[in-house]
């Protein structure tokens, strides 16, 4: 598959997809992924391949091991193609928060590919060879770029896949997931990477499932809920219309549809950002220029050295999140911010539990808008960036599985339909999106 690597290099030059690329084909073949190139988001460790998670602070780091999900793909015969571009540590919605390459949207180069798994989504869209992507979501980093680039992005239940070998962002939120051009592609890769792992103490003990078994099962009798709050102010009317079109499509295929309410949708944003930043600020404490990554000459006392390495290694958004995350955990502020956010998270989870007592899946727009232009993005304040995640953070806080699949276009740009299901119910998402895909 050496031709694939050459082709990937060309695509990289055109779209800004890779932070590192395989030098040769060392795939073993012979499994479910024989002849398939698997790209890996930069924050997932690949043995011997520079792994920076989009950050200068990890410059030069070559992991001496494969992440569990990578190891599983190799075991199924895949070629591990390279490390795809992302926002630094996953801190972003448009993949512009990185000192390295910024991927462009394959449908319009003036627009964002989405973040934080932007390179993964962009490559999934433009690859003209058999390819599947390993991506990762903390608050919507699979769904958002999948929506903006018009591909399928599947974020599994928290704990469905091992996080061993992932450069952590927020441990109670991070999920390694998949992208593909089709639902069948996504179902195949999830089947390969899910399941228990002795190296991850938070992984579910549910045995691995063959998710391709849900393909073709149809949606007869499937109960679809449409949460009103996901079609509110700030959601582009064209996006709402496209998503409703897909919901009507599910109804025509035999599903039942009802509107319902998830009252804590709006406040999920603040809850999410406080928790994510608090966890991120503790995770980033380990980057100190000693054991791996960016090193500087050992000058000054240890506090001075660490502070200097970190100032040099982190870019602006990472610094902002460290400051905010440290603040919300500090004595005196912790109860009002961090603990309060965790209590609101309980409310968000209860919203979903109540909904899933009545329906099988929830349908909503993935993002409130289509991919914005880079000039629009650079005019936005940080709080406006965060607000773009208002539709994806709640399911991520609850750790439920979600899938984004293309459902039409607005201004020539893809719109994403977001389906969500209860914990461990990925099968229902695959059934529904596959039914829509084959009926289109």
């Amino acid at each position, binding site marked *: 598959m050496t031709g694939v690597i050459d082709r990937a290099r060309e695509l990289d030059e055109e779209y800004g997809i890779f932070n590192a690329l395989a030098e040769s084909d060392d795939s073993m073949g012979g499994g479910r992924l024989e002849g398939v190139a698997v790209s890996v988001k930069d924050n997932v460790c690949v043995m011997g391949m520079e792994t920076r998670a989009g950050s200068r602070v990890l410059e030069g780091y070559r992991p001496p091991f494969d992440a569990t999900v990578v190891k599983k793909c190799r075991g199924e015969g895949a070629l591990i193609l390279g490390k795809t571009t992302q926002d630094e540590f996953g801190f972003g919605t448009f993949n512009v928060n990185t000192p390295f390459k910024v991927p462009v949207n394959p449908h319009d180069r003036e627009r964002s590919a989405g973040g934080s798994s932007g390179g993964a989504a962009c490559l999934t869209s433009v690859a003209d060879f058999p390819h599947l992507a390993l991506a990762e979501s903390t608050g919507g980093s699979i769904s958002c770029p999948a929506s903006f680039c018009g591909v399928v992005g599947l974020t599994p239940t*928290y704990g469905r896949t091992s996080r061993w070998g992932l450069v952590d962002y927020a441990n109670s939120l991070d999920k390694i997931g998949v992208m593909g051009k089709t639902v069948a592609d996504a179902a195949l890769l999830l089947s390969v990477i899910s399941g228990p792992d002795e190296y991850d103490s938070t992984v579910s003990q549910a045995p691995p499932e063959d998710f391709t078994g849900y393909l073709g099962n149809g949606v007869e009798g499937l109960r679809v809920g449409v949460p009103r709050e996901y079609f509110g102010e700030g959601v582009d009317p064209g996006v709402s219309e496209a998503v409703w079109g897909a919901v009507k499509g599910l109804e025509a295929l035999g599903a039942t549809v009802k509107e319902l309410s998830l009252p804590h949708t709006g406040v999920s944003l603040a809850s999410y950002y406080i928790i994510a930043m608090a966890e991120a600020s503790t995770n980033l404490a380990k980057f100190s220029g000693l054991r791996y990554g960016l090193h500087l000459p050992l000058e000054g006392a240890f506090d001075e050295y660490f502070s200097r390495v970190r100032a040099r290694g982190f870019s602006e958004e990472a610094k902002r999140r460290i400051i905010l995350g440290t*603040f919300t955990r500090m004595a005196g502020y912790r109860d009002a911010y961090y603990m309060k956010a965790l209590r609101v998270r309980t409310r968000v989870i209860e919203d979903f539990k109540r909904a899933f007592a009545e329906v099988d899946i929830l349908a909503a727009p993935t993002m409130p808008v289509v991919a914005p232009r880079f000039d629009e993005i650079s005019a936005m304040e940080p709080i406006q960036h965060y607000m773009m995640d208002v539709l994806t953070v709640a399911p991520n806080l609850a750790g439920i599985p979600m899938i984004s699949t293309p459902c039409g276009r607005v201004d020539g740009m893809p719109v994403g339909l977001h389906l969500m299901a209860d914990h461990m119910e990925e099968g229902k998402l695959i059934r529904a999106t596959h039914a829509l895909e084959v009926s289109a």
Partner: protein
Amino acid sequence: MSDHWTIDRGLVERIAKVARLELTEDEIEKFTKQLKVILEAFRELDDVDTEGVEPSFHPQELSNVLREDEATPWSWDPLENTEHREGRYFKGPRIQ
């Protein structure tokens, strides 16, 4: 969040010190402004009644995964990615 705290340069400098992060004058000024805006927006959590609600540190209950306490071989060298080593040790900056 009934109390109102003053978000000022002093606070940002204090946080940066705790977080071992050297900030430039420009960054301190910029982050002070942004912190005010962002924390003000986060205060909408005040509107949610969470009386008697337990905090969710995790999205769902998962049980711990334990294995037998037996040594297994580990094939890689923890020192291979550092530039600061002396013999079989990491070399760090001086303590003071």
